[in-house]
């Protein structure tokens, strides 16, 4: 698992993936997104060499673009993707602790988070926190709603809905 973070600028993905291709690497699943002015890359890379070789191959481009690089050896071949069946949308006045409160309540029900995205938006004086979670749960929606009921009383809007996946 290759992690790269640096100040956002055009050309990061092209330069990194070109360097990886030239080094003989094969790319798999990736998450690449701009977060707070940084560009972040988490990328599954298949490479026959030890991690140190991969780091060396990336060193010139990382130095050139000001990217910090981190590599974790992981196992990861083809696998069955988990399909989310529940989505949770959270909106509230921004304050510390929202994520912990929501996800603790979900974790207590056995909810498995597959994906979490969040943004802070709105008026700088009154920022709003928006979080979108998708995951798997075997509990009925009513039970999840009940588990999160306390948060609503604390002024956080939480909406839980099923994700129906159509197979056709």
């Amino acid at each position: 698992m290759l992690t790269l973070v640096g100040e956002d600028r055009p050309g990061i993905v092209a330069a990194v993936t070109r360097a990886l291709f030239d080094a003989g690497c094969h790319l798999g699943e990736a998450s690449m997104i701009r977060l707070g002015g940084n560009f972040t890359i988490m990328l599954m890379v298949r490479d026959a060499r030890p991690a140190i070789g991969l780091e060396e191959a990336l060193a010139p481009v990382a130095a050139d673009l000001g990217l910090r690089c981190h590599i974790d050896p992981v196992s990861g071949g083809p696998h069955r993707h988990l399909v989310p069946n529940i989505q949770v949308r959270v909106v509230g006045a921004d304050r510390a602790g929202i994520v912990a409160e929501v996800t603790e309540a979900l974790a207590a029900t056995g909810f498995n988070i597959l994906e979490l995205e969040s943004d802070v938006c709105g008026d700088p004086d009154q920022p709003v926190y928006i979080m979108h979670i998708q995951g798997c749960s075997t509990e009925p929606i009513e039970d999840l709603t009940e588990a999160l009921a306390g948060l609503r009383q604390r002024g956080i809007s939480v909406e839980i809905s099923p994700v129906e996946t159509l197979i056709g």
Partner: protein
Amino acid sequence: MAVQPILRLPDERLKQISEPVAAFDSELRSRVAGLEETRLAGPAAVGIAAPQTGWFQRVVILDVSSKKGIAHHGHLVLVNPEIVHWEGYEIGREGCLSVPDYTGNVIRATRIRLLAQDLDGEPRELEMEGFEARAAQHEIDHLDGLLFVDRVVSRRTDLFRRKVYRAGGAGDDRQPT
């Protein structure tokens, strides 16, 4: 006809545009029976289109009746279907027999009206909504050589449209202001 093999991405034949059915005969019935057998043989698919089995004519089967609490028309064989009216849109998650182990968000019309023929060539007009309308659009796309992966939208796009405001007690379609 027996269960047919499903064409899978990146099979180029999935991009082929299918031809209208002209003959409503016993061969059509036999092929439709094979298509239904194929649909039922795989993972729980609510629809299948003829070209997914390498039969490039405009035939789809839909059956979303397994989903509880939704409006639907039961089991449908649609020959030469044509969507003539679209209304509303929403994002929903789709997968496909021809694209194993991948699901993605796709924008589809919420309500549609379509014209089609049945197995005897008799014209039908159907109004569909929600999940059934989504299934019909997904299957009819196959007849035009389109897969849902051609329409997948960014997962983050969903953030911009928060449709259901149940907690506030308002209607389902209230838009963010």
